[in-house]
């Protein structure tokens, strides 16, 4: 590219990036303002004084550490669940031939099309029967049973692995399980990481799950706790913004450091099928 093209690209990017980050900057700067300042000059980006105590106050106004530890349990558990179960299901859909496979796959994709508000009551009753009501298990266990989106992604990826690989392994005397565990899984690490990250972010942000299944405050994860915080402190914008920033920051860091792998994972997750 010549310098003219290059500077056009930079100018465009800078312009768009400013627009995209402005709301976030407003959130950040608002979280550091005093309540009086937020009301007086909501649009001034640099606060007059840096009110770090807003963060301390937000953390103490809710059982923050409890929420955070719940969220972490949830994230780790559900990432594990998704990676294990979806890879197995995807393997079955992608590499094994069995009666009704394509039909069942269509149904699976179909389940994505139905809004959760109607499916939640039967789901709720089902998990309640199993005795998981008001436990984090109610949110983690289902991920061990797979979800349509991740299965779809992984299936697409597995299908890009040449069939000869499996053939060679079969000749070497590996069982179907062996092929899955020893051959396919190690080849799919970037794709698994992608699915894992998607699930991590989803679990981090999940709001409807806790809403349905948890009723004890000391089991709430951050996303749900945040919503409750928002409704109880709706007149204290500085605290709301501080809480929202606290909530977002870990995901920002996670993405920032994992983006290389993440992008590689998506790229190789044969979406081009």
């Amino acid at each position, binding site marked *: 590219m010549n310098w003219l093209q290059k500077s056009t690209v930079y100018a465009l990017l800078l312009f*768009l990036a400013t627009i995209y980050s402005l709301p976030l900057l407003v959130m950040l700067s608002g979280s550091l303002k005093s309540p009086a300042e937020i009301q007086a000059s909501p*649009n001034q980006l640099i606060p007059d004084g840096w009110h770090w105590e807003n963060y301390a106050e937000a953390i103490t106004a809710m059982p923050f550490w409890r929420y955070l530890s719940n969220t972490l349990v949830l994230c780790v558990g559900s990432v594990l669940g998704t990676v294990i179960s979806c890879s197995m299901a995807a393997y079955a859909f992608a590499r094994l031939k069995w009666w009704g496979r394509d039909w069942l796959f269509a149904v699976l994709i179909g389940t994505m099309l139905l*809004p959760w508000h109607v499916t939640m009551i039967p789901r709720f009753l089902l998990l309640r029967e199993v005795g998981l009501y008001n436990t984090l298990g109610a949110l983690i266990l289902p991920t061990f*049973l797979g979800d349509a989106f991740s299965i779809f992604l992984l299936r697409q990826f597995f299908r890009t692995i040449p069939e000869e690989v499996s053939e060679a392994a079969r000749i070497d005397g590996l069982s179907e399980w062996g092929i899955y565990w020893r051959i396919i899984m190690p080849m799919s690490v970037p794709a698994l990481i992608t699915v894992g990250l998607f699930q991590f972010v989803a679990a981090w942000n999940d709001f409807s799950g806790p809403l349905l299944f948890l009723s004890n405050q000391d089991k709430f994860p951050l996303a749900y706790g945040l919503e409750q915080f928002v409704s109880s402190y709706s007149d204290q914008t500085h605290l709301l913004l501080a809480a*929202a920033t606290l909530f977002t920051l870990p995901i920002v860091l996670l993405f920032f450091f994992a983006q*290389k792998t993440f992008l590689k994972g998506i790229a190789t997750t044969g979406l*081009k099928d």
Partner: protein
Amino acid sequence: MVGLLALFVYPFLVSLYWSFCEYDLINPPRVVGLANYQQLASEFASGTGIAKALWNTGYYALISVPLSIVLGVSLASLLSCDIRGQSIFRTLFYLPSVIPVVAASILWMWLLNPTDGLVNSILGSLGLWKPQWFASPNELVSANAFASSAWANNATPIGSKDALILMSLWGMGNFMVIYLAAIGDIPKSLYEAARIDGAGPLRRFWNVTLPLLTPVIFFNLVMGLIQSVQAFTQIYIVSEGRGAPADSTLMLSLQLFLSAFQHLDMGYASAVAWLLFAILGVSTWLLFRTSRRWVYEGVR
């Protein structure tokens, strides 16, 4: 596999059964045949209830999805130019999509405050129109918007759904990273070949990048459609939980929620859900059918 069936297929079937029932969540369901669907049909015929919801949902989905594709692809191709600071830009564009919806909605209601929100302050200082955003039931994409009277006296035809679309565009980062990854995966040799043929950057984008992106665009189109039609939380928050102002944000998902949990009419709500399902199913199927004409399947 059995668990999968239990968790997905069972609720799926139960909701289908409910759509033929009268069910208030308190007393056991009672079969009433097609009554709920008849109700839908009569509302549709009279242009109330479901008809409004369909219009609002269609307006939102059909505008926000294509726009987010255009924006996502453009951003991704800009980002894939050989530039410094790519990872920072990437993060900035991706970030908004991981902000929890609750927080994002509140933030945007604040930013789009017609009187002294950040957006209107900026527009005002540039001497531009200051739309009412969430305060108005207007629609930018309408015949009315061409009338000069729509823009006179500080008025604009921009309203709540347009604000929601703006919000959705802000949060399209997760789609953008998919494009970005796909562009990164395009063999460099193709660009080299194009360059040797004398193609400029725009031509290269048009003839190499875009065709090779079509499979991903197609995937995002389907996922985006599903997501936008099912969008609920942000709509619930900005609409005071009732589709305000003047039912302009009463979308299918909100209609469904209100009928299930406020009007205690789970049967009707399930019928709405299955209508939604049918619409999504048919459009996905149509997309798949037409995809053969424009989705590129070469190379591999």
